[in-house]
């Protein structure tokens, strides 16, 4: 790689959350997965009204309450105290999952261990022997939302691409991911493979292609 003079900076966690938030349209009903996706709520552009869904029965979920104001009957799917915005509503679990499974949510944003170029998602289990499996609402969200987006670092800690030809971790769902937002670039998954949406400044396409290890169409 001696000849390439790529000089670029990864998107920080906040920058990645802001990048995802930028693409969420005004008026969307959105479910943000546990972990990194939760931060997207802090970066919704001013003037856009987004309604957040939490699978434990909340629409119109607001931010965390001030210290001392926690109400432990009002928590998010990650079991942290949240608030309810004016106009928000409560409902039972079957209705809540009907909102996902019935295709009523516009967007869900999930983390991932791996995503295939055609949108297969692996985000619930590493399949390691001895670990106790837990799936929660991941499989329902992945197949139910009108658009499933993934946000993640492009590479594992050991430098391997998390975008793969075929997932080796146990699948969450087949062909469900529409877009992948990463710290280096954003992609669309299509039946014909990856399409580039954008990338960080200074990152050459050849370098990105080398990191991903999969064909990318512009």
């Amino acid at each position, binding site marked *: 790689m001696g000849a390439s003079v790529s000089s670029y900076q990864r998107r920080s966690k906040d920058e990645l959350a802001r990048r995802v938030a930028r693409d969420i349209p005004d008026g969307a009903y959105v479910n943000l997965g546990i972990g990194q996706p939760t931060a997207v709520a802090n970066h919704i552009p001013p003037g856009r009204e987004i309604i957040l869904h*939490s*699978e*434990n*029965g*909340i629409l119109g979920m607001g931010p965390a309450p001030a210290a*001392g*104001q*926690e*109400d*432990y*009957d*009002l*928590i998010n799917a990650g*079991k942290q105290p949240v608030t*309810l915005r004016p106009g928000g509503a*409560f*409902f*039972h*679990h*079957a209705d*809540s*999952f*009907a909102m*996902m*499974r019935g295709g009523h949510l516009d967007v869900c944003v999930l983390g991932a261990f791996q995503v295939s170029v055609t949108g297969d998602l692996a985000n619930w*289990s590493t399949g390691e022997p*001895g*670990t*106790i*499996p*837990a*799936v*929660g*609402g*991941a*499989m*329902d969200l992945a*197949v*139910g939302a009108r658009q499933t987006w993934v946000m993640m670092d492009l590479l594992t800690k050991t430098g391997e691409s998390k975008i793969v030809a075929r997932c080796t971790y*146990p*699948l*969450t*769902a*087949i062909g469900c991911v529409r877009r992948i937002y990463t710290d280096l670039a954003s992609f669309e998954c299509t039946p014909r493979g990856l399409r580039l949406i954008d990338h960080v400044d200074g990152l050459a396409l050849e370098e990105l292609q080398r990191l991903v290890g999969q064909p990318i169409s512009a």
Partner: protein
Amino acid sequence: MINKIAASVAEALADVRDGATVLIGGFGTAGIPGELIDGLIAQGARDLTVVNNNAGNGDTGLAALLATGRVRKIICSFPRQADSHVFDGLYRAGRIELELVPQGNLAERLRAAGAGIGAFFTPTGFGTELARRPDGSPKETRRIDGRDHVLEYPIHGDVALIRAERGDRWGNLTYRQAARNFGPVMAMAARCTVASVHEVLELGQLDPEAVVTPGIFVRRVVRVPRVATAAGGFRSVG
């Protein structure tokens, strides 16, 4: 006269049989019927199948029930948590059976039981490990309108233990905030639903427009005090 109000938790749970399937409401800190779980521990029924979203936290509530060794099997979506050490130990020792179910399938299988649905097809889980039965055999699948679906069966309960907010002697219930979660579908799915409430009202005092679980789905209502604990859900309520 219909009077579903039980005098005590012990009275409400007196007839839970060994081998029963017990649906237990709650998600995280919200809606867990702690007093009813403690009552079930005191009652002593064993060889139970428990249905809950999780598999217990810390050493109280569901975790304490598991620790008695009286739960043969748990059906849940998310057993692994930072403080699920009781379940973890039992599972690793092979002393409890786990049926892992996507959370939406859990809710819908309960709803189906309550609504008399024989089985239903859903895209959730298609092509994954969870499209297999616990014995490893594949579940039935079908392509419907070009999309692949998995056949899922209802989960019927013998007993449901749920936490509501207010109730009356006909068994009508309201809930509080996100503590509603599994309560209404579990109430429908069990033959005998026992609801704890914090207030028992006279008939007519619950706004009929606001009743969430109509009394037809509820067998017994028992009043328990509001506990002002950090995890109990009522700390900031006046």
